[in-house]
Every structure is written in C-alpha cells, then in structure tokens.
C-alpha cells in the first residue's frame, strides 16, 4: 500500500514528529511504500541541521535523515513555512542574502503542491498533528 505522512507538530515541542518517525519505520518494515513525508507548520524545524540536543536526548533531525537515506525517502519541507521560520537551504540563503543556511539533503524545500500531489497518489495520508 502507498502511504504518505503529513507532520504538523513542533519539531522540538511535541511528540508528534517522533510518533510519525516510528510509524514510518513500521510501515517500511511491513513492506509498504512511503511516497512522501511532508513537514508543515512548526514541524519544519526538524530540517535544521544546527540543532544540538543533549547527549542523552534523541536527535530527531538525525533520525529522519538516517531513515531517509536508508530508504531513499522524499522528505519535503514546506518552503513558505520554512522560510518565515528561518529554515533555509543554500539556494534560498543566496536568494534572500542570508549569511548562512541550516538545511540540506535529504531534506528538500518545496511547495504545498507536493502535499496535494501526495494526497492524490497515496492510498493513505496520515497526519501527525501539533
């Protein structure tokens, strides 16, 4: 079955990004397809590579990154939600004349159309909320 996941909860102030991660791992283990993971709202902070959690706490940025690299996942971060929150890749940093950037592959900035497309393509779109 083809799944897509929409994450809306805050990356570092909500359990939902982690619950979504466990759900993704489980559906992949069961042999299903994960068409896309779409980060919207406060979940876009997941894509920031600058987070430095304490050693004894999980690194949700790294967990998603590793899972994506292992399974060639499509991690799409809503570009409008990301830019206003300061989650920015190299290309957008140049465009907006920012001195640095904090996200890169496998996280990819793109539009809400990617979520619409995922809703159509997938048999199930599962949301993990704020």
């Amino acid at each position, binding site marked *: 079955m083809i799944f897509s996941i*929409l994450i*809306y909860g805050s990356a570092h102030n909500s359990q939902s990004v982690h619950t979504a991660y466990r759900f993704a791992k489980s559906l992949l283990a069961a042999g299903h397809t994960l068409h896309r993971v779409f980060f*919207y*709202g406060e979940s876009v902070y997941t894509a920031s590579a600058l987070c430095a959690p304490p050693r004894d706490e999980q690194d949700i940025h790294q967990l998603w990154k590793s899972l994506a690299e292992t399974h060639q996942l499509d991690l799409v971060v809503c570009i*409008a*939600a990301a830019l206003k929150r300061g989650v920015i890749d190299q290309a957008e940093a140049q465009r907006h004349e920012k001195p640095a950037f904090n996200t890169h592959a496998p996280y990819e900035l793109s*539009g*809400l*159309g990617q*979520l*619409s*497309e995922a*809703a*159509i393509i997938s048999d199930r*779109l599962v*949301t993990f909320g*704020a």
Partner: protein
Amino acid sequence: MQSKSILLILSHAPYGDTRAKEALDLALTAAAFGQDVSLLFTQDALYLLLKSQQPQAIEQKNLANICSALPMYDIDKIYIENNTSQTKHITAEQLILPGVFVNHNQIALMIRDHDVVLRF
C-alpha cells in the same frame, strides 16, 4: 492526474497562532491543483468569517479577506458547524461568506464520504 475529494476541517481562531492561516493556504493550493475541496468551519474557526477584522493593529494579514476570496479560487463548498454558531451567538448576517449550516450528524457523514479529511 486523478482527483480526490478533500475535506478540510478548520477548528482554530485566526491570529492567536498560524494554524488557521496555514490551513487556508493548503486549501487554496489544493484547489489550484484541481482538487475537489470542501471547507468546514467548526469551533473557533467560525471567527475567521467575522466581518470587520482589522489585524493591522497586531501586524498580521487579514484572514477574513482570504476567506471572502475563496469562491474566486473555485472553493465554493463552504460548510459551517451549526452548533458552534449557536454557542457563539453568531448569525449568518455577521459572516463575510455564505455557507451551508450542518449539524454533528451531517459532519460525521461528510467525514465518511470524502476521500481525504484533514483537520486543522
């Protein structure tokens, strides 16, 4: 690309957080992508539709303006939770957009009958 029927349920008031605005952005995008979008205003989301909003006082965009433009973006299936409007003493005349008033039973059936249901 095939089309699916999408029901977007809004439940939060404007301005206190970005939830209502991000849900509206999603609705506009889905409609632009040719999806069959229905919008249901429940709970505090009914406040999105109040006339005379002036959010420049708190430096935010006017979400009532976005709502009133929904039909121009081919979103004309607008539903309003009946129970909410009664609790909040809001009448149809106070709203910037006409909508079909629905009760809890009808909402349950709408959720059943749409392909995708997202609640914000």
